[in-house]
């Protein structure tokens, strides 16, 4: 057994090395005969897709955003992992991650079978050969997913789905209702007016947060010509970086650990900053005087996809999980717990009254207004061809500079 694992790992490493070479020379298109060409100009490595679901294996290791795989240990009534375990016999082992970058890195270790990837991670996982295409015919519940979530830039390549849509939502602005008055309605609370709460402002600790600044600039400085916060040329990136450097002076601390943010808001060390609905819910549970709103400018957000590890040893459990997590029951439970719109149409029949209206679930035009996390690449995502855009690596470097 040990020997086989090692061989498999070796084979996987070898494949990775090969595909690595393939992607690196993707520019000249000379040797991209295998795989499919994507809109980003990269070549998806040729990885086989499952064509049937057999007997379930013993275990499944799940890599998820906090709150996506609850087994009742956080809150007794919040549990959709146990029913899955009882139904399939797959013992679920959950690991939470705090940023998309962490997810990409952990998936590269090959130790996790399925992952809930946001748009800024999914394409990187596909290009890196870390996830396999998903045969949606094997997932009965896929039929009930809103059509506008299928075959999108962030979850498919050339019409081939690489996962199942899970849900979507927006990054919100959270503030301490005792301290921050009047209640903010705009992201200016953390940018131009941040100095009013100097030292108590918080922001998400990831290069992708640069898009939040870009979104704000889109509204406040139209002459910069930003059309898509993930397609920034050098000047636009520089403007966003300047804004964030100014914000840095008023930042108390950055957060990527959701528990740390809850604690900071509870003690009052942070009074205003970006958040997710689930963090606001947990903070309120702990009696922190907070409120979370969707500011006037709109927001960045996520549209998540469950993907399956290319070298998984539990493919059947993985397909079982993907079918379970988008079933109306589980999907409704996750959506309510995490505070996002579910992907399954039928989930809205099971959520509490008014929930799906609040989150505009299924409202396609609303969903289009959220700027979903996407990996910035050289080829501008907004369709401009006269300039090259800055890549995620540029953003990473800029982020280190912003923090100083």
């Amino acid at each position, binding site marked *: 057994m040990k020997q086989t694992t090692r061989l498999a790992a070796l084979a996987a490493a070898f494949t990775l090395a090969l595909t690595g070479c393939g992607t690196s020379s993707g520019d000249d298109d000379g040797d991209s005969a295998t795989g499919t060409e994507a809109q980003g100009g990269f070549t998806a490595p040729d990885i086989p897709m499952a064509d049937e679901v057999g007997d379930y294996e013993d275990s499944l290791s799940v890599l998820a955003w906090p709150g996506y795989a609850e087994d009742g240990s956080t809150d007794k009534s919040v549990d959709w992992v146990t029913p899955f375990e009882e139904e399939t016999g797959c013992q679920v082992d959950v690991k939470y991650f705090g940023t998309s970058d962490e997810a990409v890195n952990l998936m590269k270790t090959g130790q996790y079978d399925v992952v809930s990837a946001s748009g800024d991670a999914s394409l990187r996982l596909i290009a890196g*050969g870390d996830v396999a295409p998903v045969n949606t015919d094997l997932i009965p519940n896929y039929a009930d997913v809103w059509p506008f979530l299928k075959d999108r830039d962030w979850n498919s390549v050339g019409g081939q789905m690489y996962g199942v849509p899970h849900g979507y939502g927006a990054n919100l602005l959270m503030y301490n209702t005792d301290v921050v008055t009047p209640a903010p309605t705009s992201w200016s609370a953390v940018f131009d007016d941040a100095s009013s709460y100097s030292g108590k402002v918080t922001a998400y600790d990831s290069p992708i947060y640069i898009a939040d600044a870009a979104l704000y600039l889109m509204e406040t400085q139209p002459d910069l010509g930003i059309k898509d916060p993930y397609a920034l040329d050098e000047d636009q990136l520089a403007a966003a970086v300047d804004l964030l450097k100014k914000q840095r002076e008023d930042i108390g601390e950055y957060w990527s650990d959701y528990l740390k943010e809850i604690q900071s808001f509870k003690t009052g060390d942070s009074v205003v900053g970006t958040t997710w609905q689930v963090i606001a819910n947990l903070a309120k549970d702990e009696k922190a005087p907070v409120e979370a709103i969707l500011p006037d400018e709109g927001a960045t957000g996520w549209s998540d996809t469950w993907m399956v590890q290319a070298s998984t040893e539990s493919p059947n459990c993985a397909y079982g999980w993907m079918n379970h997590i988008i079933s109306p029951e589980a999907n409704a439970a996750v959506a309510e717990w995490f505070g996002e719109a579910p992907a399954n149409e039928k989930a809205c029949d099971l959520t509490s009254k008014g929930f799906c209206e609040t989150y505009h679930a299924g409202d396609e035009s609303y969903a289009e207004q959220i700027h979903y996390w996407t990996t910035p690449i050289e080829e501008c995502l907004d369709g401009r061809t006269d300039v090259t855009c800055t890549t995620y690596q540029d953003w990473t470097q800029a982020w*280190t500079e912003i*923090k100083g």
Partner: protein
Amino acid sequence: MLWLGVLYLGSLAALFITSLWTVDAFGGNIERIWNLDNYRDLFTIDVYRTITARTILTAVAVTVIDALLAFPIALYMAKVASPRLQRALVIAVLTPLWASYLVKAYAWRGMFASGGPLDDLGLSPGYGLVATVVTLSYLWLPYMILPMYAGLERLPDSLLEASADLGATTRTTMRRVVLPVLFPAAVAGSIFTFSLTLGDYIAVEIVGGANQMLGNVVYDSFLTGNNLPFAAAVATIPVVVMLAYLGAVRRTGALDSL
């Protein structure tokens, strides 16, 4: 010995070799193309100089604070306390080392929080570099006390008495008799406190506010940027600093008398 060489120097060599590679921007896989780009970035982009300076200054501050705090404690333990009390004190100094690093760091987070104990006294500097220095000084203090205590214990009482008999004041005895014995011990302790601080990234995450140190850059380049080669290049900075530090220590001759 051979194994030590292979495992220890081998991994350092691997670190250095990795730092000369690069990653493909999108998939994040390592490409084995030799180049010096990582080092060029390191030298030409200001922020890395700032972070290096901040890290070294923090390490120096922690070392100095620990040395000043440890000296009276070590002196009392070695020269004043009764053998019974001595044993009790050694145990007392060692006990904190059994508690988890994280627990202690988070305890300090609670101390510095708004509305926390230090804030009630009006003494909390808030999360930031000062809090980081305090936390790290606390964490590494035993590593300074123990070598100092061991060094002072080797100093025979008769030397102190002889010094007094010859008419030296306490101050002169300290300067001419105790300090020369203490110096190599303090240097040994400083190697611990300095190098441990140089590589730390967790304490600054927890109590450092928005500040980052070299360890965070390594962590971020690896986990966030998915750029192992660059992380390796950054990680060579503390190695170089430490080599320079050890070289300087060797010149003072402190290592010979250990």
